[in-house]
């Protein structure tokens, strides 16, 4: 079981520590960890599980904050990692972001949260909705109140009703004037295009996010028109497995507020919404680079926020790149960003220029991989369609809304 959790800042400073068991862990472990991760960044800095001389360490890195947990005994490593991820998510929700200052500013809340989330090294309450009932998130009102009156308590006086009921994820009896459910399909497309331009891998990872504000204890069913395309699924604990197994229908009592109902994966898709064609020809110490981007507009929706990013090979001395659309930036670490934005209708954006190779080098022999980013509103690239959403056991009417958004995940084009 976990013995201690440390939160480290970007510079290795311990922002706070929370001892979980009687076997205290000294802070010096953090400096050991930091030294090691600086000195062996390549092999060690990114390892999530580390055996230090005294403890086993688990690290999860999120937006500049390192969450470090220590144990001395055997335990499922994924449990520790998953828990740390959960802590990071909860803090992110509470503080509206994650950075050193936010954590320092709200350290009392962080302590209180950690105390509720884990007891004696074993996770206690991790359901975000329940936590919000026990410890109020900081918001403008409470901030102002604390300035004006000087008193504010973010610790709830009563136990959330949910922890007593049979549905541990739902507040007992919320009341809303307006009952509404919003369902979002958020999809990420992973694709790999090899240097011959062939689509090696193309798949979509999607999440069904639900924001529900329904009074009482609703029983929902959600069905898809084409559930057979789903290759693999994962569910929120509220989903009844049996219904899915037999009828491929999601049947659940939703938690109150925002939650992630399910995530899924659709494999072996045939095409990508846009194409990126890089060309590199090198000769006599220089290299000619040309990248074309265009949309295969078969969805009828615009493609936004298109970016192309790549790392110039280390053997390149200088680069001179221009584009006919968008801006090109080359950073100090030889990362090149091409910000295209929305793809124009009249022309295909392209970037071209010459790269000067290291002296003595005739031709390029390591080639960069181009990472592509984009966003499409209103389209689920996997083709998954929601059929209908029903509410049982609740008599009144409610408003329901569906949305879909797709963006690029690990979309790579090799050259």
């Amino acid at each position: 079981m976990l013995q201690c959790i440390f939160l480290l800042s970007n510079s290795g400073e311990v922002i706070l520590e929370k001892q979980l068991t009687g076997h205290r862990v000294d802070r010096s472990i953090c400096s050991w960890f930091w030294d090691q991760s600086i000195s062996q960044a390549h092999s060690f800095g990114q390892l999530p599980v580390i055996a230090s001389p005294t403890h086993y360490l688990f690290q999860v890195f999120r937006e500049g904050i390192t969450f470090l947990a220590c144990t001395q005994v055997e335990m499922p490593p994924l449990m520790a990692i998953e828990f740390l991820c959960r802590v990071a998510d909860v803090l992110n929700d509470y503080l509206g972001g994650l950075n050193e200052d936010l954590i320092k500013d709200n350290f009392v809340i962080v302590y209180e949260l950690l105390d509720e989330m884990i007891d004696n090294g074993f996770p206690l309450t991790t359901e975000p909705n329940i936590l919000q009932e026990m410890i109020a998130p900081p918001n403008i009102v409470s901030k102002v109140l604390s300035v004006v009156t000087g008193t504010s308590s973010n610790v709830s006086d009563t136990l959330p009703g949910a922890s007593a009921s049979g549905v541990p994820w739902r507040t007992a009896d919320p009341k809303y004037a307006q009952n509404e459910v919003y369902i979002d399909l958020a999809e990420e497309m992973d694709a790999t295009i090899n240097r011959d331009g062939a689509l090696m891998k193309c798949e979509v990872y999607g999440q069904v996010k639900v924001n529900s504000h329904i009074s009482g204890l609703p029983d929902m069913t959600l069905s898809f028109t084409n559930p057979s395309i789903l290759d693999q699924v994962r569910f929120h604990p509220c989903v009844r497995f049996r219904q899915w197994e037999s009828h491929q229908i999601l049947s659940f009592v939703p938690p109150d507020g925002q939650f992630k109902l399910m995530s899924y994966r659709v494999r072996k898709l045939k095409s990508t919404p846009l194409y990126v064609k890089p060309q590199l020809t090198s000769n006599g110490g220089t290299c000619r680079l040309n990248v074309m981007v265009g949309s295969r507009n078969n969805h009828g929706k615009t493609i936004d926020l298109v970016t192309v990013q790549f790392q110039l090979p280390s053997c390149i001395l200088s680069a001179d790149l221009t584009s006919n659309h968008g801006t090109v930036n080359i950073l100090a670490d030889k990362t090149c960003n091409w910000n295209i934005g929305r793809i124009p209708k009249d022309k295909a954006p392209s970037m071209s220029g010459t790269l000067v190779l290291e002296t003595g080098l005739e031709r390029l022999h390591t080639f960069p991989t181009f990472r592509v980013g984009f966003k499409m509103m209103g389209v689920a690239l996997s083709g998954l369609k929601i059929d209908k959403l029903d509410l049982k056991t609740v008599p009144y009417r409610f408003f329901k809304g569906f949305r879909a958004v797709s963006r690029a995940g690990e979309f790579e084009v090799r050259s």
Partner: protein
Amino acid sequence: MFPQFGATAESLSKASTAVFRIGTDAHLYDDPDDVNIAPLLESKFDSEKTEALKRLLALIAQGFDVSNFFPQVVKNVASQSLEVKKLVYLYLLHYAEKRPNEALLSINCFQKDLGDTNPLVRAWALRAMAGIRLHVIAPLVLVAVGKCARDPSVYVRKCAANALPKLHDLRMEEHTSAIEEIVGMLLNDNSPGVVGAAASAFASVCPNNFSLIGRNYKKLCEILPDVEEWGQIILIGILLRYVIASYGLVKESIMFSLYGKDDNLEVDEQDFILKEDTGYTSEKTLSELANMILQCYIEGPDEYLSRSSSANMVPPKLDVSQFTSCSNDIVKILLKCTSPLLWSNNSAVVLAAAGVHWIMASKGDLKRIVKPLLFLMRSSYASRYVVLCNIQVFVKAMPSLFAPHYEDFFVCSSDSYQIKALKLEILSSVAVESSVSFILKEFQDYIRDPDRKFAADTVAAIGLCAQKLPKMATTCVEGLLTLIRQEYFCGEIRSMDGEDGVLIQAIISIKSIIKLDPPSYEKVIIQLVRSLDAIKIPSARAMIIWLVGEYCSLGEIIPRMVSTVLKYLARCFTSEALETKLQILNTTAKVLICNTGEDISTLQKVWSYVIELAECDMNYDVRDRSRFLKKLFSCNVDSQNHVEEQNSESQKRDQSYVFAECIFGRQTTAVTVPTEPINDRFYLPGSLSQLVFHAAPGYEPLPKPCSLPYIDFDQNDGTANSDSDEDGDPSTSGSVDEGSASDYSSEQSVTASSEADGSDEIDSGNEGNNNVDPLIQISDTGNVSEEQNGGVHSRFGDLMSTKSLESWLDEPAKSSKENETNQSRARRSSARITIGNIRSRIKPKYYTLLDPANGNGLKVNYSFSTETSSVSSHLVSLEVFFENCSSEAMSDIVLIDESSNRSSDPSTNQTPSTTENTMKIHTENPAMVSMEDIPSLEPGQTENRTLLVRFHHHLLPLKLALFCNDTKFPVKLKPDIGYFVKPLPISIEAFRDKESHLPGMFEYIRSCTFTDHLVELNKGSNSLTEDKFLVICEALALKMMSNANLSLVSVDMPVASNLDDASGLCLRFSSEILSNSMPCLITVTVEGKCSDPLTVSVKVNCEETVFGLNFLNRVVNFLAEPSVTRS
């Protein structure tokens, strides 16, 4: 230019952040101690208290020690405000262990809160009360937990379950049964939330008390999908262990391959594998590897160590009776209830469920785990790594499982290096004929990756693929050759670090492919040789030169070009790097041996040229090699020079020729698929040990199949029947249990006997192994010193279970037998060894009492003796050596206590004075039992006497007077606290037991560095890795025992992945204080690398605090001081 503007901008941004931070606790974190905290704590306003507590919390967060506020904070525990309470609890739990006495003050408040109507208050009070971990209040907490376990609120019951491990941590042996009873009760709870917490309590309190599970098995399975995700992870593991312990493994599962190979069922299994894995040429070795992986699952580290130390011990096969069928209801339910968990949102749950299927599910059903595992890779970066590590083992054991999904292991540019490497390894093992072309195509892209280390790994993976699928080998080699050509064009100009790696790796890969079938790659070798001039990297050159030597007689063309190549090599010999030079020498020798052809004279010229050059080389390795070769080949070369060879073959020539032939002439036999090193360990899927490659403390392998004691089992049935009345199906569960029990009752004897003759009985559940008696006999008679060399190891290695080893260590062999607490003891990830008759090697230290310069030629030395006095336990015995270094005889030498008057004549009777002295002892200062005087001492003569001394004080020297020839010499006898104790031979269990009674303030720890072993290590050059540990153990033990009067209890060896890492080595010594027979326990733990000075931390547990501290200081002092080199 405009500093004022800069300042404004800065202050503006400051101001804006200040506005943004208003209302948060930012100011508290930034300046926690800018106000006086103490008066705020005393305030009557909750808001001020809150602020003070927040400030304290900020200080804690920043790593300051604010425990001095403890008394004031504790007072606030009575506050009505929940926020104050929460903050106080946070503070209290952080410091309770440091300030136990003040923490006691809060107990009353907790007691009161436990009766509160608000369940939140009750739960918090319980959590805090259990969290402060004080021995004194443990009984109170136990009562409170018992009460809360029946609380109407689920949350409170959950907290009660979480409090149990805290109680268990306090190690209250007398309450164990009460705690376990509560665990059982909570496991039977109707709320899934409570069951989850109870499962985790079970896992840490009594992981082997399977009767608690047996009672509720069905219910637990059914409730499993509703249990909280964290509880699910633990509960899945518990259920799996329970099923294996009571019903055994499943026939249809992969674990069945552990069953002996002499059954016709085996054929089915082979069929299955062959059907699945068409295209695997090396199926045999793969399944062997799989076998080893599976073997590791049920084999503890101790067993493994004892098995591997004995050479080529065949792992014990499992009995067919230890298998059950998939159709068994019990197994069915488990699989049915865990399979929906494969869809869980929590990746740890998915992996745990996959682990159960991996071990229990039939091979056909195994496919179910594949997609969920692959999906896990998309969750978070950190879990992707863990999942890949686990998949890697699954793939090693059963490549067919993941073979169709090879595309999922294609590398993304955003992956970290570790993940890339894992994916490459998986890809090269899942490659089958249908997919290998796609995989190789993908690899071609990777070779162009800017990360050259990754590119080099890819090249290695290509080599592996080619070795596995010989059909692809030619294509691979061609690709690699192209790569080499391309690389050396670039390599010519630049010397980037990674670049060399790719080239070297490419040649290594080609080399290993050539080995498989040398004749068909003749052209490849020639091509490589041609490129020799372009390739500049020494190790790459050396490898190609090796190829020339190795295959110099292969095919048609190579023998013809060899002499030219050698000429070329000889020409550039001087400009080569060391390894290339050595390789040129070897190759020339090889060619010379193999060559029978026409250009022998050219070769010999080249040979003598190279040898001559090498003899004058700067590097001594090269010189040595050349001299050695010259000597070896001298006769050979000479005799071939003279034409009339056949008859004049001298004996000598013959001999050295044979030698040379042996060394250079033979072609290295083609190695088949590189087998995994046998000391690779595998651990259960999803465990921490699996990731760190050693058994983490607390790691337990699967229980021995069907190891649950059957008598217990029947009792369970009884309780199960009475308990499950309300379940409504007592007949089914009962009858199943009984049926199997009657089935197995006859097997008990079989398993027991098989244990006795091979497999080990380090068994958690089965304590009925009193058949260790003969083992003890064997091990006791075994020559201990021989054992060190592994002689006995090989014969009795399999018998060396922990028990026999432990008993070996203890002089009275019975002690471990008497001790039955073995079962409850947590298994450590270390092996225990004996380091033999160390006592005989102890050399006592001599101190000078009087040196001849001061004593008119009388030299008196003394040493502390390990014997204890028979007269009184308060006396320390010393050996005093008198030596006359002068030329005259001496007389009437006597040593007396200065404080006692001179009048007690040495010549008086011995006995009265002794008794007198011992009587006096209790009242007086350091006293000494008088010594027999030495009437006369001739020149050069030595005489020794035993002296019994009572040092009243541990540290101050004792003033004595030495009379010789009626002259008085005042002398000082320095006490050595190391001899104020006597050995206390106890068993390891007794040691742990005593240790657990001496925690907290009776425990002192200090560290020092230890270097003695380095001398020994440097002495022995042929140090095998095990020996390093032994040497350290011996050096440490010797040092300890020659400086203090101790008895060695046990030696724990770490089972580390890193063989040079001595961390975790642990020696335990026990002793008893002479004066009051209080035990004094010493634990020495080593940290650091074998070949470096070690950090040794010494822990002393002793009830007498002052003595303990002094003793510890003494131990640390003598450990740190380097030893005098022993002759």
